[in-house]
């Protein structure tokens, strides 16, 4: 009898691998257009990982906002700026070796720290993600309920923030 591997484990490892490969592609590829496609791979893989953790609403939001909105922004800007002399330009800054060593040290330290943590059994109350006032409706409804009732002030601040960001982007982007 071999070890039975569940679908969840397979999906996690497959999409974690594509997410990491996509992230590495963003950092190492020379052409920003290729970096953008690698970033899209990473975002879509992370959306699947959200679904595995029963965050269905956020998985779809990730698909729409990152995979749709932010990617289109990046692609538009890449097409606006002229990248013809790409081959002659430096890929990395002068500080890159020191930065790489520091980040690697930090990663080893924190992952060694995290490996010692023994988490309690997870997801002991599955109803919390789908229940609205004792009625099982769905994840979107539950998130909306929490967002509009318990977190109304942050929600309004977020709307003001987006307005400020929109005006800022328009002011920065217009011709002088």
């Amino acid at each position: 009898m071999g070890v039975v591997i569940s679908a969840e484990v397979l999906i996690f490892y497959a999409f974690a691998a594509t997410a990491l490969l996509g992230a590495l592609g963003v950092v190492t590829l020379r052409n920003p257009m290729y970096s953008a496609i690698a970033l899209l791979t990473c975002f879509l893989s992370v959306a699947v990982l959200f679904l595995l953790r029963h965050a269905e609403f956020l998985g779809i939001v990730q698909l729409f906002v990152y995979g749709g909105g932010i990617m289109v922004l990046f692609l538009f800007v890449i097409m606006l700026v002229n990248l013809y002399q790409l081959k002659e330009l430096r890929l990395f800054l002068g500080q890159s070796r020191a930065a790489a060593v520091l980040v690697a040290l930090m990663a080893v330290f924190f992952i060694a720290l995290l490996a010692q943590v023994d988490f309690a059994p997870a997801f002991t109350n599955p109803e919390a993600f789908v229940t609205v006032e004792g009625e099982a409706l769905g994840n979107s409804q539950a998130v909306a309920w929490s967002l509009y009732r318990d977190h109304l002030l942050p929600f309004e601040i977020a709307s003001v923030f987006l307005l400020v960001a929109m005006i800022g982007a328009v002011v920065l982007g217009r011709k002088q």
Partner: protein
Amino acid sequence: MTEITSTHYVVLSFLLFSIGLLGILIRSNLIVVLMSIELVLNSVNLNLIAFSYQLSDLTGQVFAVFTICVAAGEAAVGLGILLALYRLRQTTQLDQGTELRG
């Protein structure tokens, strides 16, 4: 290895964070630096979702919505700054925009 625990998610999220941080620190192209910032924010979301699941508490998911909102605003303003730099210098290389007064 037979089930996915919160440790898996936190380690993955930390690896994505490290790669994003590395991209911010070493790349000389501003477009790719902005993409790396998105990677970092995305890894934060992954962490929030993992602990939301760990604690069976919806607040983590709600907070991730706000993180996505901040990421969208940051991308818009960051790319606006990039276009302003490009208009001034005809480049997106960070090491060519070094003047304090221009």
